[in-house]
Each structure stands twice: as C-alpha cells, then as structure tokens.
C-alpha cells in the first residue's frame, strides 16, 4: 500500500481528527480494569489472572511499536491505521468468542496479543504524518494525537461500565460487550483510515518551514547515537516518576490524610484519580504546545526539574495540606503526559522527519521499562514500610526520594543532549521528497 498523498487544497486540519480517531480508540486499554471484576466472578479468575490481557497488550504495544516502526514509515499512515483497526477490533471479537465459550485463553490471545499489536502500530501511526503536516508546530500536532490516548480511557471507562450494566456481568453479557466494542471501534477508527493523507512535497503550508529542514537521520543510525539513548533515559525517568503516583493514587491520598481531621473517603479518592487523568490529558496538549514556543530541551528541564521540586514538596509538606498534595500531584501528572506528547517533536528536532515514526517506536521501549519500574518501586517500598510498622505518608517517603533521584538523572541526561554528529546524517534526503511527489494524489 503506497502512502496516500493529499490532493491539492487538502486541509492539514483534517489530519489531527484522523489521528484522534485512532488514539481515542486504542486509549481504551487504560479502561481494562472495568472488565476485571465481571471476568473474575464469571470465569472464576484471580486478580492477577484477570490483569493478564492488559499486561500482554502493553508488552505487545512496546514490541510492535519498536519493531513495526520501519514498516509504518515504509507503508504510510493509512496502512498503519488499517492494521491497527483490524488488530484492535479483531482483538475484541476474539475476546467475545472467548467470553461466550468461557475460554479465557482466547481473551488473553485476542485482547492481549492481537489487540496489543493494534495498540503499538496505532500509537505510532499518525506521529510522522502529523509532524510533516505541522513543521511549524510539531509539539502541538503530536500533543493533540497523544492527548487522545489519554482521553480514550475517559470515554471507554463510563461507556463500558454502562454497557456491562445493561448486558449483565455474566459471561454472555461480557461477550456481548466485547462484540459491541469491537464493532464500534472499527467504525470509529475508520474515519482515521479514510481521512489520513501525507502532504505533497516538503512544504505543506505556505510560509511554514520545510519538513526536511535540519539534519535527517535514519532509524538504524539513530539508535547508534548517544542522543537517542540520552532521550531514552529522559523519557524513562519522566514516565517512571509519573507512574509512581498514578499507579497508587487512590490508596496514596487516603494514606496521606488518614490521621487528619478530614480523611479522604474511597469515593473522594476516585475523584482524585479523575483529577489526575484530567491533568495528564491537559499536560499532553498544553505542555507539548508550549514546547513549540520555548524549545524541547527547555520544556524537559521544566518537566524534570520542577517535577523533582513537586515531589520534594509532597514529601515534606504533603500530609499537612490537601490542596498542596493535590496540586503537586496534578503538576507531576501533567508533566508525565507532557513528556509523552513532546518526545516525537524532540526526536524530529534531533533526527529530522525522515524516519521519525520508526525512531519514536524504538524509543517507546523506555515506556515499557518505566511501566514496570514505577509501580515496582512504589509498591515494593510501601509494602516493606508497612511490614516495618509504618503508616500514613511514611509509607511513601522513600519512594518519593527515589523519584526525585530518578528525575535528577533524567535532568542530567537532558542536559547532555547535543545536536547529532553529521556523520549520522543521511546524504541525500531530497530523493525521498521526489519519490513522494511522484505519487499520484488521491481524490478526496
């Protein structure tokens, strides 16, 4: 499948909704927890077992983004969005069959393995195209798409809950819910497949800089540069710090104010989790757009430096003031989201647009490690502190100190990032443009 080239007069403002149609769908992954209790009761599963489909999906996300990035660059965004649609929807349909026949392994295979491939390919599918359409505002463009990944769970969580309430939480109700999810997401994502176009030539908008401005580095060369691995460390540290709060947000706020005059109830802690989700989403579009104005290196100084200060404030004064605790946690989560959304534009600054999608896919392996590291640190330390007889905010103090240390490591890595040496640049980037321009534009 050749990349779909935009016809004359195609608006670049049609590309962000195409990206959002995919990201809002695959963002459903973070709402998997809605299905856990019904699956546990209807199929007799443990909590660990019911988490398997989600865990496998996240592993497959990382692997398919890392290894499928080059294919996405070669075949274009429409191919990638089609693969994502087919895999993500098929994952639900296979899971529906699994629930209907009470074969749990089919749910793990469907949602986790097949659907997970859809997550990874879908996540990176619009990134390169958006950067090429918005060379003047790459941070804002990728911020819109990656905000969608955060927004997907906001939509799916209440939607899936209502569906299970209507269909029932037995295995046939779950099967019907999976079936409706698979079909609905196929229809919703098809907008992205139909709308996405790559720009004609290297200057999609009059007055905007050329997409080939600056150095161009292939994905194969990029992973041999220190810049790639420094940025890998930056992303890994930033994500670990965010997940450290996100993963245990509800019990954390209850523990912090357990002995205060205004303890936090279970329903109030759910409100805190919702606020963190809002901050995460707002950070994706807000901070990433800001990076277009102040530069990528500076925005990561803010994420990592101010993030460390926020953790220090929570560790020192968090249990004395609920507003301070909530505010600091929201700022940290906005940096967490911002870090995800800004990294494609940072990669574009360092390695150019030539294979930025493939490089982004490889960088997302940092997310996979952070996804294990963050929860592991916070949970392991909290359990040990509890066994040592501690309670309240003391359960988390050591975790927060470690998080500050990780953010300082990330800050130092960011400081070490310099422009890529010229020996890694590809010699004739113009040839790529000529190839793209030779293709026939598609009709609208």
């Amino acid at each position, binding site marked *: 499948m050749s990349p779909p080239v935009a016809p004359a*007069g195609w608006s670049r403002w049609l590309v962000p909704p*195409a990206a959002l149609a995919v990201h809002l769908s695959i963002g459903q992954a973070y709402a998997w927890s809605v299905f856990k209790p019904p699956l546990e009761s209807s199929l007799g599963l443990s909590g660990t077992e019911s988490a398997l489909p989600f865990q496998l999906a996240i592993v497959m996300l990382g692997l398919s983004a890392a290894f499928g990035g080059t294919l996405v660059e070669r075949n274009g965004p429409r191919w990638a969005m089609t693969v994502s649609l087919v895999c993500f929807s098929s994952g639900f349909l296979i899971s529906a069959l699994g629930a209907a026949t009470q074969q749990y392994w089919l749910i793990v295979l469907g949602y986790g393995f097949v659907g997970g491939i859809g997550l990874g390919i879908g996540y990176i599918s619009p990134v390169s195209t958006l950067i090429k359409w918005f060379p003047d505002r790459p941070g804002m463009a990728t911020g819109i798409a990656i905000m969608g990944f955060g927004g997907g769970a906001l939509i799916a969580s209440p939607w899936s809950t209502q569906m299970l309430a209507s269909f029932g939480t037995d295995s046939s109700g779950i099967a019907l819910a999976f079936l409706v999810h698979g079909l609905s997401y196929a229809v919703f994502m098809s907008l992205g497949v139909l709308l996405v176009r790559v720009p004609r030539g290297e200057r999609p908008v009059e007055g905007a800089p050329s997409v080939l401005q600056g150095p161009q580095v292939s994905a194969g060369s990029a992973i041999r540069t220190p810049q790639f691995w420094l940025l890998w460390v930056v992303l890994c540290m930033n994500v670990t710090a965010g997940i450290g709060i996100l993963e245990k947000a509800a019990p954390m706020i209850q523990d912090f104010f357990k002995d205060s005059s205004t303890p*936090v109830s279970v329903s109030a802690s759910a409100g805190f*989790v919702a606020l963190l989700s809002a901050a995460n989403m707002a950070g994706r579009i807000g901070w990433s757009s800001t990076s277009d104005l102040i530069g990528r290196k500076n925005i990561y100084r803010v994420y990592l430096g101010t993030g460390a200060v926020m953790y220090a404030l929570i560790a020192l004064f968090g249990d004395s003031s609920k507003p301070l605790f909530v505010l600091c946690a929201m700022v940290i989560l906005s940096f967490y989201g911002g870090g995800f959304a800004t990294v494609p534009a940072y990669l574009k600054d360092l390695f150019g647009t030539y294979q930025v999608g493939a490089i982004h896919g490889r960088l997302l392996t940092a997310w996979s490690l952070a996804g294990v590291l963050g929860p592991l640190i916070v949970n392991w330390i909290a359990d040990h502190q509890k066994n040592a007889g501690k309670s309240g905010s003391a359960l988390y103090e050591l975790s927060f100190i470690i998080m500050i240390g990780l953010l300082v490591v990330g800050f130092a890595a960011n400081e070490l990032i310099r422009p890529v040496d010229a020996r890694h640049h590809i010699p004739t980037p113009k040839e790529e443009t000529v190839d793209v321009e030779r293709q026939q534009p598609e009709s609208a």
Partner: protein
Amino acid sequence: MSNDSSQSPPDRRPLIAFAWLWVGAPLVYGLYELVQKATKLFTG
C-alpha cells in the same frame, strides 16, 4: 484565469467540521463523566 477558478479545490470546511465533531463528541462525553467524578474529591 477563469480556467484557474474552475479548478479551485473543493471547500473542505464541512468535512473538517464533521471530522472534529466525530472525535469531539465522545471526548466531551468522557470529559463530562470525568468532571462528575472529580467533584467527589471536594464533596466527599
């Protein structure tokens, strides 16, 4: 000149509005549900 104007690209604004509505409507629903939940932090 008249030949140029007859080949002008079609107006994409209705398509842009439809595309943004397609993705915006569910997002507004999600944000509404989020606000409902978030207020529980302050109301208990």
